[in-house]
C-alpha cells in the first residue's frame, strides 16, 4: 500500500512538475479557440506555464460557469465573457478589475476599437476585460448578382435606381423585393432571416431597428423606446422579410439554418455575424465561394464581442494575467488574425499583410467602427428572452407589432428599475 501511494505521488509529481504551473480556461467551441490553442506552445516556452483549454458549447457555458463562479474557489483561472453576461458578472462581483495590472504593464487599451472596448472592456470606468474577438453583424450579399447587367437593368427599370451595394435601408429593402419577386430565379429569395427565439431573432432585428433610426432606450434616462414609429416600422420590415420575401420556415431558423440557405446560393442576402464571412469562401461549406461580400448594415450594424477576464474565484490570478497579456499582445493578436481569428485591435485591420489575405478587412473595420451596442445591464439575457418572445409572436402568431413592442418596453422598464438604471 505504501509503495502504491509513493508511486502515485511520484506520478503526480512528474505529471504536473514541481514548478510547472498550469492554468485552466473554459472556452467555447469556435475557430478562434483553435487559434488560441495554436499559440499555447509559444506561451509555454516563454513563461513555463501550461494552459489547459476546456471547450464546451456556447449555450451551456453559462450553466457550467455559474456554479464555479458562485463558489469561493473555482477551477478556472481565466474566463472568456460574452457581452451578454457582462452586466450580470460585474453586478455579482465575479470579475477582478484589471486597471492596476494594465497600468503596471503599460498596456494601451486605446489599441482596441472603441465600440468593442465599451462592450467587453470597460464598465462604468473600470476595466474588467480585454476584448478577445468580435462578432458584430453585417449585411452579406451576392456580388455576382449585383454585377450582372441583366439584373442592373431590370432593377433600374422597376425601382428607378442603380443596383449597387446598398447604403440606404430602403434601397436594401427594394433589392430584397426585387430578387424575390422580379429577378426570375427559381426558388431564389431576396433575403434569409434567422427567426429562432431568443438571441438569433433579437440580434438580427436589432439591425432593423438601428436601420430605421430606432434605439433601445433613451441614453439619458434609460427610458425604453421600442414602441415608437421607428421601432414598429422596423418590426413590420422584419415581418415582411420573413413572411413575404424569405424562404418558408425562416421564422424558426437558427443562424446555422439561415447561413446554409445563403451558402447554398438560394438567397441574395443574409444579415449575420461577420465571422460567417470567411466561411462563404470555404468550399467544404459553401456553393458561393468568391461570390459573397460583407458591408455595414445601412444605419449601423449590431456590435458583439467576447472579452478575456480573471474571475474573482481564479486560483492563480497572476499567471492568468500573464496569459491574457501574452494572447492579447499585438504580435500574437496578429498571428491569430492571420489564422482567421476575428480581431478587436484597430491596427490589425490596417495591416497590409492581413488585407492582402482578407480583402474584406476595410469594410469590416468600418462596420465595427459604426456599429451600435445592445443594451448591456444586469438582466441583458432576460431582456433578450422577452424581446425574442415578442418578436417571434409578432412574426408567427399574428400579434400586433405595436402591442408586442409595448410589452417589451414594459418588461424592459421593469428590469431596468430592478437594476437601478431607470428611476
Amino acid at each position, binding site marked *: 500500500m505504501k509503495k502504491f501511494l509513493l508511486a502515485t505521488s511520484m506520478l503526480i509529481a512528474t505529471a504536473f512538475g514541481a514548478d510547472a504551473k498550469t492554468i485552466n480556461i473554459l472556452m467555447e467551441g469556435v475557430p478562434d479557440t483553435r487559434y488560441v490553442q495554436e499559440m499555447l506552445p509559444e506561451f509555454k516556452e516563454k513563461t513555463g506555464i501550461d494552459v489547459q483549454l476546456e471547450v464546451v458549447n456556447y449555450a451551456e457555458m453559462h450553466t457550467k460557469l455559474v456554479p464555479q463562479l*458562485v463558489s469561493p474557489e473555482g477551477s478556472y483561472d481565466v474566463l472568456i465573457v460574452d457581452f451578454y453576461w457582462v452586466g450580470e458578472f460585474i453586478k455579482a462581483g465575479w470579475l477582478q478589475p484589471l486597471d492596476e495590472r494594465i497600468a503596471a504593464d503599460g498596456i494601451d487599451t486605446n489599441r482596441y476599437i472603441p465600440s468593442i472596448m465599451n462592450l467587453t472592456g470597460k464598465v462604468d470606468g473600470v476595466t474588467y476585460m480585454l476584448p478577445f474577438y468580435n462578432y458584430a453583424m453585417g449585411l452579406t450579399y451576392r456580388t455576382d448578382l449585383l454585377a450582372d447587367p441583366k439584373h442592373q437593368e431590370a432593377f433600374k427599370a422597376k425601382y428607378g435606381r442603380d443596383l449597387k451595394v446598398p447604403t440606404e435601408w430602403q434601397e436594401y429593402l427594394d433589392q430584397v423585393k426585387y430578387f424575390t419577386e422580379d429577378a426570375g430565379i427559381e426558388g431564389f429569395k431576396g433575403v434569409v432571416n434567422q427567426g429562432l427565439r431568443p438571441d438569433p431573432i433579437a440580434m438580427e432585428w436589432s439591425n432593423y431597428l438601428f436601420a430605421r433610426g430606432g434605439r433601445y432606450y433613451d441614453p439619458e434616462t434609460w427610458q425604453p423606446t421600442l414602441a415608437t414609429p421607428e421601432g414598429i416600422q422596423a418590426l413590420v420590415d422584419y415581418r415582411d422579410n420573413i413572411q413575404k420575401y424569405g424562404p418558408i420556415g425562416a421564422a424558426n431558423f437558427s443562424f446555422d439554418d439561415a447561413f446554409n440557405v445563403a451558402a447554398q446560393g438560394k438567397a441574395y442576402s443574409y444579415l449575420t*455575424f461577420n465571422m460567417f464571412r470567411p466561411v462563404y469562401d470555404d468550399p467544404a*461549406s459553401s456553393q458561393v465561394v468568391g461570390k459573397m461580400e460583407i458591408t455595414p448594415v445601412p444605419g449601423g450594424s449590431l456590435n458583439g464581442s467576447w472579452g478575456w477576464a480573471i474571475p474573482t474565484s481564479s486560483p492563480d490570478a497572476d499567471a492568468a494575467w500573464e496569459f491574457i497579456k501574452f494572447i492579447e499582445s499585438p504580435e500574437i493578436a496578429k498571428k491569430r488574425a492571420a489564422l482567421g481569428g476575428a480581431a478587436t485591435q484597430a491596427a490589425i485591420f490596417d495591416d497590409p499583410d492581413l488585407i492582402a489575405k482578407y480583402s474584406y478587412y476595410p469594410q469590416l473595420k468600418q462596420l465595427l467602427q459604426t456599429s451600435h451596442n445592445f443594451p448591456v445591464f444586469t438582466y441583458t439575457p432576460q431582456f433578450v428572452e422577452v424581446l425574442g418572445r415578442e418578436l417571434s409572436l409578432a412574426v408567427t402568431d399574428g400579434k400586433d407589432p405595436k402591442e408586442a413592442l409595448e410589452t417589451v418596453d414594459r418588461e424592459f422598464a421593469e428590469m431596468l428599475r430592478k437594476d437601478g438604471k431607470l428611476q
Partner: protein
Amino acid sequence: MRRVIRRLVPHLVLVPFSLAIVLPLLWLLRVSLTDRRTAYQIPPQWTEPHLGNYIEIFTAYPFATWFSNSFTVALFSTLVALPLATMVAFSFARYNTGGAPLRLSILASQMLPPIVMVLPLFAVFLGIGLLNSRAALVIAHVGMNLPFLAWMLIAFFEGEVRQLEEAARIEGATRFQAFWKVAVPVAAPGLLAAGLLAFIMSWNEFLFALILSGKRTATLPVGLSTLDTHRGVEIALLAAANMVAILPVFLLMPFLRRYLIKGLSLGALK
C-alpha cells in the same frame, strides 16, 4: 397458409417500424461521408464518400476520451445502481417496505427538473472534493437511475413471481435464497431491460456531466455539443461522431442476445 400469415404479421409491424429508424440513420451515414456543402445540397448530389470526418473527430477532437469516459461512467453507474435497485424493488414488492408513501417519495425525487439541482449538487461534490472526476458522475448517475430502476423492477417482482417464491419458502428456502434463486431469475428479462435503460440514461445524461466533469472527464454528450458552434453546426463531423457513438449497441449484444433468444420463463424453472 394460416401459419404463414401468422408468421408474416409481426414483420408487417416491424418492417415499417425499423425503416422509420433506419432510413434517417442511413441518410446520416451518408452525411458523415460528405462535407457540409454537399450535406445541404438539394437535389442531393452523389460525391465520392470520404472518411475525413471520422479521422477528424479522433484527431482534432478528443473523441476517444469522450467515448471511454461515457462508457466507463455508464457501465459503472449501472453496475452499482442495478443491484441496489433490485434489492429495493424486491423488498417493496414482497414485503411492502415503507408502504406507498416511501414508494412515491422515491419516485418524487425524480420529478424535479434537474436544472434546479445543479447548484446544490455542485456544492456537494465540491465539498467532498470529487469535482471533475468520473467518480462524481458515477455517483450522480446512480442517484439519478436508482428511483426509476426500482420502480420498473417492482412491476417485475409482483404477480406470478410471488407464488413461486412463497412455494420456495415453504420448501425451506431462506428469504434471501428465495430472492436470489427464484425471484431474480424469474425477473431476469426485466432486470436486463432495466439495466439496459439505465446504461442508456447515463450514456445520454447531459446536465450533471456538464457541471461535474472537467476537461479530462468530459463525456460524449458534453463533447458532441461542442460541435454546435457559434460559427454554425459542424454537421458532417457530428454525423460521423454519432455513427461511432451508437456502436455500443454491439458491445451490449452478448447480454441482449441471451435474454432475447432464451428469455427465461416460469416454465423453465419448474
